[in-house]
């Protein structure tokens, strides 16, 4: 159980590294934003696996806060991309 969870945790961390590759190499601005969005969702998965490993529940709070901040940030950047002001 613990070794398999370790393998899954390291796989998840490697996948967030893949998102960093897309953020660095992305040819356009929206590519980088896609990378940031998916990176946030992967970090929530990492938080969930760590909360199972350490048997503590407060790590899931970090995940919930990260979901909400990622949602607001992506909506704001989408408004910026479509060229509108933020109060339209």
């Amino acid at each position, binding site marked *: 159980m613990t070794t398999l969870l370790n393998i899954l945790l390291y*796989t998840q961390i490697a996948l967030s590294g*893949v998102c960093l590759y897309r953020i660095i190499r992305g040819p356009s601005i929206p590519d980088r934003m*896609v990378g940031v969005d998916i990176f946030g969702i992967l970090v929530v*998965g990492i938080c*969930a696996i760590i909360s199972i490993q350490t048997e503590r529940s407060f790590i*899931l709070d970090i995940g*919930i806060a990260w979901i909400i901040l990622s949602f607001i940030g*992506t909506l704001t950047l989408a408004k910026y991309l479509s060229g509108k002001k933020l109060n339209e």
Partner: protein
Amino acid sequence: MNDMISLVFIVIGVLFNLLGCIGIIRLPDVYNRLQAATKCVTLGTCSILVGVLFYFGLSDAGIKAVIAIPLLFFGSTVAAHALIRGTYHFGVKLSDKTVKDDYKDAVK
């Protein structure tokens, strides 16, 4: 028993995340990449949280997982829709292999 069910859900979730990240690297343009990434990664992380729910049962951590699942599911899809709409208005070109573009007529 609950440990085995939660482990199966977490393995399925990490496999979905793996497919989504392969899509992020391999697909040709930003529209395809966002489509693959959002579907696979949202389903994968929701599956991991379902695994957490099975592991902890209905204790405080399980309730937090229940709260996080709808937030992630609806928030991520809505954010991806807004992001791809903004990308189209920003003027990113579609890939060369694209067959059909219905949204171009709808914008006019």
